């Protein structure tokens, strides 16, 4: 699915962006230090340009970080019409609403799948 493709992209590009950001910040600090030591304005200009590059990389990282991959977990509720017993379980393939499934642990009456729904999980 495209979610997997997104996860693959995120895993591939996030470390690259982080390493580049660290390198650019180190260069910017070095240039700033050189400016304070020599008082040459060209160092300040270069430091400013490098900081722009750092900002560009930071926005890239932020965009990748915000790329949430949503997964769904399916749940079902089985209930007993006789005694009112009800339980939330993980959905099993082939189950559907109103399907008779097993018997009630309290009174032995057949249980009915009364609801199936999804819960979103983000990573």
């Amino acid at each position: 699915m495209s979610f997997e493709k997104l996860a693959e992209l995120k895993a591939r590009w996030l470390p690259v962006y982080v390493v580049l950001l660290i390198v650019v910040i180190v260069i910017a600090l070095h240039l700033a230090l050189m400016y304070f030591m020599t008082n040459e304005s060209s160092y300040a200009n270069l430091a400013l340009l490098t900081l722009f590059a750092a900002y560009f990389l930071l926005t890239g990282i932020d965009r990748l970080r915000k790329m949430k991959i949503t997964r769904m977990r399916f749940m079902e509720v089985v209930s007993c019409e006789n005694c009112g017993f009800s339980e939330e379980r993980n959905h099993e393939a082939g189950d559907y609403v109103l399907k008779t499934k097993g018997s009630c642990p309290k009174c032995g009456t057949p249980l009915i799948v009364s609801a199936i729904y999804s819960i979103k999980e983000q990573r």
Partner: protein
Amino acid sequence: MNGGGILDLFTFMAILAFFSYISRELEIRRLANEIELYLTLFKAARDSAVVAAVRRFGELVAKTGERVNISDLENKVKTLTETVEILPVSMDSFGLVRKVKHVLRSEDSSIKTEIKRLTPLADKGEIEVIADLVNVARGLNFIYKYINHNYTLAKRFKSYWLLLQLNALLPFVAEEVRAYESAVEALVKQVPIGDSAGPLVLTALAKELKAKSVSLGVPDTYAYLAEYNGRSVIMIKAEGPGSSVGRLDEAVRRVVTLWGGSLALVITIDAMVKLEGEVTGEITEGYGVAIGGVGVERFSIEEVLTEYGLKPYAVLVKMSAEEALLPISKELYSACLLAKERVKDAIVKFVQPGAVALIIGVGNTLGVGN
């Protein structure tokens, strides 16, 4: 006048023009890269839908004991996903609805017949699920091809504006693609989707009223009869738990023929597309027939209700267009239970004791039994 000054000015202007050109080229490159990323995702979504359909097909073919030829199945599914529907000419609108209905029914039955031919042991529900998987793959295939067509055109003519428009639209298209993808998951696992709200409300009501099933003789449609506070309640929905929307218009005509004189109210329960800012799961009521789609069934039901002077009423569960295709969430399920109470209130409010109310659970009955 100093000649160097003019040269400086020309140099400055040339640099300015160069940077303006470069900036535009870079912007085109950025837009193209973004669109290409979206296209990669759309293609992956389309391919995964095809793979899901082929896998499901394979499982059902394996049931027959025959050797499963995956590449052969894949070719057949791909052929099905490439089919197009050609709606009738609308220049002369007389009888158009009947013609559209005929085309849609023919398309539906042809796809199902083809699936049945390939998997003779599959039951009705399984065939419906595969047919819908194929339809989802068709939808995703169309989106991918259409976006790719526009992108290729824009790139060929280096049209900045076309790329810009396409790029602006893509986040919305991506939402739709994600909803389609989730629909694939719902179909494979056979769990109800947002659009199943109508049938879910109806089954919950039928269960609560301990309704008995009645036969109307209409294919793909299921009917119940119950008593509620001295009123008779007839409930109809698509036959589950496969992926079907039933033939509700034919069922309504049948019910009106059988109970015509005593029918007092027709309530349709359906999912409604909310506006941005509205809350998912909000229940709203309205007057009229609530059925989405092309409008063929709505037209037929409106015809019957007008002919017999029956009052149409609607109970609607609000959700986004994407949520209608996504597996139903817990909050939407809770909303269905609230909608059931609203339906009961409407029956008491608008139907006199001794009269009959017809309740229609509109939508796909995927994962909802009878």
